[in-house]
């Protein structure tokens, strides 16, 4: 039997590597609002299952799926549809004014 138990999930920091492959900003400190329960949580606090067959991030409040990420040999598939909005902190001087 596998030593992994049903409680074995990772925190959202496990998403840092795969997300940094495509996003220039650090997304684990971004705050996402759950489309299902409306509560906000930092990506780093998502309950993440995986990495195989893919990463699945669940809402720490209601357990619904917030994001799914699959890395195939030649593509990265990302479903953020469980997140209604993502707040990403940006430096104040980057507004381009």
């Amino acid at each position, binding site marked *: 039997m596998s030593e992994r138990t049903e409680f074995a999930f990772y*925190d959202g920091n*496990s998403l840092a590597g795969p997300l940094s492959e495509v996003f220039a900003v650090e997304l684990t400190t971004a705050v996402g609002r759950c489309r299902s329960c409306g509560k906000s949580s930092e990506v780093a606090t998502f309950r993440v299952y995986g990495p*195989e*067959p893919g990463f699945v991030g*669940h809402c720490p409040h209601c*357990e619904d799926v917030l994001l*799914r990420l699959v890395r195939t040999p030649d593509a990265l598939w990302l479903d953020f549809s469980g997140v209604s909005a993502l707040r990403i902190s940006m430096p104040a001087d980057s507004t381009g004014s």
Partner: protein
Amino acid sequence: MEGPADVLEVVVMSIVSRGFRGRRRDSNQRLPPGQYLTDDFPVLSAGPTPRISLDDWEFTVVTELGQSHRWSWKELTGLSAESVTADIHCVTRWSKLDTAWRGVSIDTLLADVETAADFALIHSYGGYSTNLPLEDLLDGKAWVAYEYNGQELAPEHGGPARLLVPHLYFWKSAKWVRGIELMPQDFPGFWEQLGYHDYGDPWREQRYQGD
């Protein structure tokens, strides 16, 4: 905290080493391309293990015309069951030979269901889904399995009941199965929406879309 990549590496290494120890002469012919043998039964999960009381459990078949057929746990386990021994192949590259199951054939469940559907979308407790052609569920190729190795199916392996479709990659054998939606057209399930293959034949190594 160990990163998932480290954990995966440990799992893969243990599968590889066990595989070489446990390999039998005839095993290579039973191993699809790109697979390793394991005596273990790794647990892969996309979410928390659903807990369903057997009093509340039900299995539902919904046809393309919206007609529902339902079985309670008592009704399902009262149907004639079959014992099945099969090799299983996970898309994460482990294969396990001669796994022993007991459950109800999908042929039995669909015997009185009128349908002209060509595809099925399997639904699970906990929100998981997976799609496959209806013909791959018929003619003795698929079961709703509720026993493994002569014991009731453990929750981490999909208990109280899971789909068993051993001729396709094991993500099609949905854990915690709760029903079949019959459809005229194919509709991608949980992993199929994220780049995994719609059919998933391990002998043709159909892991990802385009394979």
